[in-house]
């Protein structure tokens, strides 16, 4: 429970703001890629092997769907993308190539009874 002593909880201690550990190096990137379904879990969780072809391929796919230069290299733009807020559900492989852009629906017609939702 959150600690407080006065009945109106006015002394509620503000929660320590936990920040996600930034993804800043290869091992963190490898964990990100395996966590979200872009690569198999790195051999021997916790240890990182040298970036092999598989990792480069995973990086390249990740870069491509995120409209980044598909270099297969862990560059700053890729790290920035990995650090963006996202959903924790993995990305299914079958979606990897779903990059087509659907025609955008034109803005709604101000109907007879305009209602702002």
């Amino acid at each position, binding site marked *: 429970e*959150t600690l407080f002593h006065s009945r109106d909880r006015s002394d509620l201690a503000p*929660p320590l*703001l*936990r*920040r*996600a*550990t*930034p*993804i800043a190096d290869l091992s963190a990137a490898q964990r990100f890629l395996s966590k*979200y379904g872009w690569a198999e879990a790195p051999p021997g969780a916790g240890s990182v092997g040298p970036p092999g072809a598989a990792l480069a391929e995973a990086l390249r796919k990740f870069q491509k*769907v*995120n409209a980044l230069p598909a270099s297969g290299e862990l560059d700053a733009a890729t790290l920035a*993308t*990995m*650090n*963006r*807020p*996202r*959903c*924790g*559900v*993995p*990305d*299914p492989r*079958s*979606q990897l190539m*779903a*990059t*087509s*852009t*659907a*025609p*955008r*629906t*034109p803005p*709604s*017609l101000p*109907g*007879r*009874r305009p*209602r702002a*939702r």
Partner: protein
Amino acid sequence: PKRFLQTLLPGPRRQPKGSPQGGGTRAFAKKTLTWRLVGEGYSSQLSVEDQRYIFRLAFRMWSEVIPLDFREDLTAPGATIDIQLGFGRGRHLGCPRVFDGSGQEFAHAWRLGDIHFDDDEHFTPPTSDRGISLLKVAVHEIGHVLGLPHTYRTGSIMQPNYIPQGPALELDWSDRKAIQKLYGSCEGSFDTAFDWIRTERNQHGDVTVRFSTYFFRNSWYWLYENRNNRTRYGDPVHILAGWHGVPAQSLDAFVHIWTWTRDERYFFKGNQYWRYDSEKDQTHAEDERGKSYPKLISEGFPGIPSPLDTAYYDRRKQFIYFFKGSFVFAFDVNRNQVLGSYPKKMTEVFPAIEPQNHPFRSIDSAYYSFAHKSVFFFKGSLYWKVVTDADRRQRPWLPSNGVFPKQPISEKWFDVCDVHASTLNM
């Protein structure tokens, strides 16, 4: 069994396979799903009311496009609730997946219908343009629970990364089609359907005519935006919220007598009818002679039985066609009487082009659509289109006023979906 022993989505789910590749898997076979914000999982950032309201809206947005209802259930045993939502920090709600604090992972959804939000994130209500919109994240995670996977398609609500939203969050066309692949389209009969005409003056002072299409069912209605092939965002709403003075539910018919000299709009229900004042946006209290509304149909439209099935106004002939059972009555509005040769059988006035492919009797609605320049007969979830002059110019052999074979209404008018009664007021 412990809910979390399964893997995170999108692994195999309990529905039989056969879903389109990559399109996700249908998760629920029930028509109404229950949900609850669990008591031990309230966020410390928003009031509980705000949290519940945002989740109620998020669920409603999905039920506006698929034949599923979502009901908040605060009393049933937790294990029977289909979708449980909660906030937590780090290790939370008995979940094996630990949140990482502010940044990166802001929420996740489990296959059995649990949705968790990282309370270290700065979640904000839809009215705020800062932080992470709780509504947007909730709609996304509910999409997972319903069976949709991530997609990188621009504009989709199912993109894995959070993208600050513009002024209005809505499910776009492709998201609607994706979820309808899993749950089907909304079907159902209508009490009445009509186009509402309004004349406006443009900047040159010319009178322009515009129209909106309305579908009425029970005590709610939708405005249909023909240009966008969908209902208005946020519909359906209660009839009483939008139409003042008409009966609150189960209308039989709407007729708009529209000539060079007359512009009269009538609602019919039971043995009575109301006239609607377009300018004042309410029903007339009385007519020019001081006689009050509603009036008896037998008085205003002598010779017309009631209650009606439906009616529509034929502008060219200046007739109102009233329908009851298997009969149709042609009412001449200038002479204020039923044509001598009526009533006739519907099948006689509107013959089937394809034998036996005809609504025959008790139609729900006869609707003239300005968008399609045609009359449609609605019955259940099907429609029969009436032959137009344009049709006959192309195919002279077609019978006058013949009816084409039936088609599903949902394949011409999209996403006319019910929502749970508890969310109608949203």
